[in-house]
């Protein structure tokens, strides 16, 4: 006899792979679209089931955008009260809709808001949830979702199942899965669901953008093909200026280790790793970064890694395609000079 607090379910009643589509104002966050791509892949492995998205208080345009990125169906939760985000109310509304449609799998982007919602939704549905998965597979025998996540400081990879409950829930950080291409010829169904929520117990009073000075007028790390990142080994904020110059010459952007962020040389939005961004660039250049496991976790999907470090035994050197042994202060300026020369030639 399973736990009596788990309402009995019939697993066969649960079909489809669903994704929470998080909004940022009037646009969809990329992570929801990335998850739609993964959802399509899982849906195919489950025998071609439906892929759907849930959107709270968003317009049809956004729903269509999700369809262009792989959704067969989008449910818009229509309640003017929910235009404004508050955690418990959002989580309850989302759980209500998921309950009604009974997907087999429900995925959530592990943004800060997503992390705030995910576990509450799971509890409301009396199901399990696995945080920050880096891979998702299907066990063809049981149709179980294999929820794979790094744990214990990134030293171990755990495979987690939810054998008895449905939906199976997982959260995934932004940037872990690639964003599927946009196909405006795709069509799908848009359903509007009126969902009432209980009396509000959380009220938003105000929002303020923190004025955070970025180091450079450069694209975000998660959307660049080339990322030049700096760590504590740069020694000074001046070091970052060199990296910015190099990044610009390579049409890329700059990133940072936690230590460089702590030193105040770059804002947290540029931090790469377990508690920062997961990135998948074509080229990652790590300058003055030791390559602690928490940092490596953010760059495993990089196609090529070049590390510049005087210490040949730094972990980053063991995990690089090209381990350049040396002082960045000597190498980077020369490299910049050479790249400029090449540019002028062409």
């Amino acid at each position, binding site marked *: *006899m399973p*736990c*009596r607090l788990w309402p009995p379910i019939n697993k066969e009643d649960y079909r489809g792979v669903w994704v929470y589509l998080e909004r*940022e104002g009037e646009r969809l966050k990329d992570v929801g679209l990335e998850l739609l791509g993964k959802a399509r892949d899982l849906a195919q492995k489950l025998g071609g089931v439906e892929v759907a998205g849930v959107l709270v208080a968003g317009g049809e345009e956004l729903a269509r955008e999700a369809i262009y990125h792989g959704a067969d169906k989008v449910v818009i939760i229509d309640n003017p009260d929910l235009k404004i985000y*508050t*955690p*418990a109310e959002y*989580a309850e509304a989302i759980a209500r809709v998921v309950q009604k449609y009974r997907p087999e799998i429900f995925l959530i982007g592990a943004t*800060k808001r997503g992390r*705030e919602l*995910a*576990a*509450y939704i799971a*509890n409301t549905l*009396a199901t*399990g*949830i*696995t*945080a*920050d998965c880096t891979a998702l597979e299907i066990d063809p025998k049981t149709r179980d979702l294999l*929820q794979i996540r790094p*744990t*214990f*400081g990134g*030293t*171990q*990879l*755990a*495979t*987690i*199942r*939810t054998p*008895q*409950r449905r939906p199976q829930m997982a959260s995934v950080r932004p940037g872990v899965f690639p964003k599927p291409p946009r196909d405006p010829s795709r069509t799908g169904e848009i359903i509007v669901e009126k969902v009432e929520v209980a009396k509000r*117990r*959380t009220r*938003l*009073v105000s929002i*303020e*953008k923190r004025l955070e000075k970025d180091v450079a007028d450069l694209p975000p790390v998660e959307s660049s093909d*080339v990322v030049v990142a700096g760590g504590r080994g740069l020694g000074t904020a001046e070091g970052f200026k060199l990296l910015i110059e190099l990044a610009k010459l390579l049409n890329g952007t700059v990133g940072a280790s936690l230590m460089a962020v702590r030193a105040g040389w770059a804002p*947290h939005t540029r931090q790469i790793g377990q508690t920062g961004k997961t990135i998948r660039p*074509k080229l990652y250049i790590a300058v003055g970064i030791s390559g602690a*496991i928490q940092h490596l976790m953010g760059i*495993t999907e990089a196609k*090529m890694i*070049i590390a510049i470090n005087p210490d040949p035994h730094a972990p980053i050197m*063991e*995990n*690089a*395609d*090209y*381990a*350049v*042994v040396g002082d960045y202060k000597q190498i980077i300026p*020369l*490299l910049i000079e*050479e*790249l400029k020369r*090449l540019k002028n030639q062409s």
Partner: protein
Amino acid sequence: MKIVVLTKAAVPLSSAIKIDPKTGTLVREGVPLTTNVWDRDAVEFALKLKDRYGGEVIALSMAPPSGIPALESLIGMGVDRAILASDRAFAGADTWATAHVLAKTIEKYVPDYDLVVAGEETIDSTTAHIGAQTASWLGVPYVYYVYDAEVKGRTLVVRRFLEDEGIDEVYEVDMPAVISVLKGSQIPREVKLSRKLNAREYIQIVSNKELGLDPECIGLRGSPTLVAGMAPATYPPRKKVVIQGVPSEVVKKLVEILKSEGVL
């Protein structure tokens, strides 16, 4: 203000981590445990509220008896008393089953709580689930990533920071409520040795005999998720070509590589 702080006796270092080969869960018996670093922020936050508004701060943890020293040092920090929910039947719990025990312990032993404060996440499992799940069990509202709060009657006005959007938000939350404290936002006060010495007197240990929870709904059996496998993390193979020499030669090689890999 009656404040319950959820704290986890966590494995402090990845080198101290041992996995039970049968269940794939963390071995916590016989491993030195210390309070999860981010929970110290939560404790500090609660103590500051008590300093301002008076009341009582109660630390709550679910752990084997090896979690007692962690609670002793929280008493040393100034926590009034602590409750340790400890029973073999709780072992192997996932976050659902853990939050279940925490919530039921609160309902039974601190029924008149005003606020539950959790750390943002733990360093050894980093799920950030427990705060939200405890709120769900208790049926109360919740807000994450809080770094400041003010009490206005039965309402808590909280300021929180969303790191990925770079914004601060202010919310009013009806109490009782659950909040999680933004990690790194507090400077935890020191542990007073004189207080820590007698700490054991202030720790109440409760087992499932007192809580009376259905054995099917706690521990490994009461966990909807199941660890099906554990493998050391490996990373995709890299070329590992070492480049050394005088800087001008190194740069020449780098440019060649950038060209051959199609970056230039």
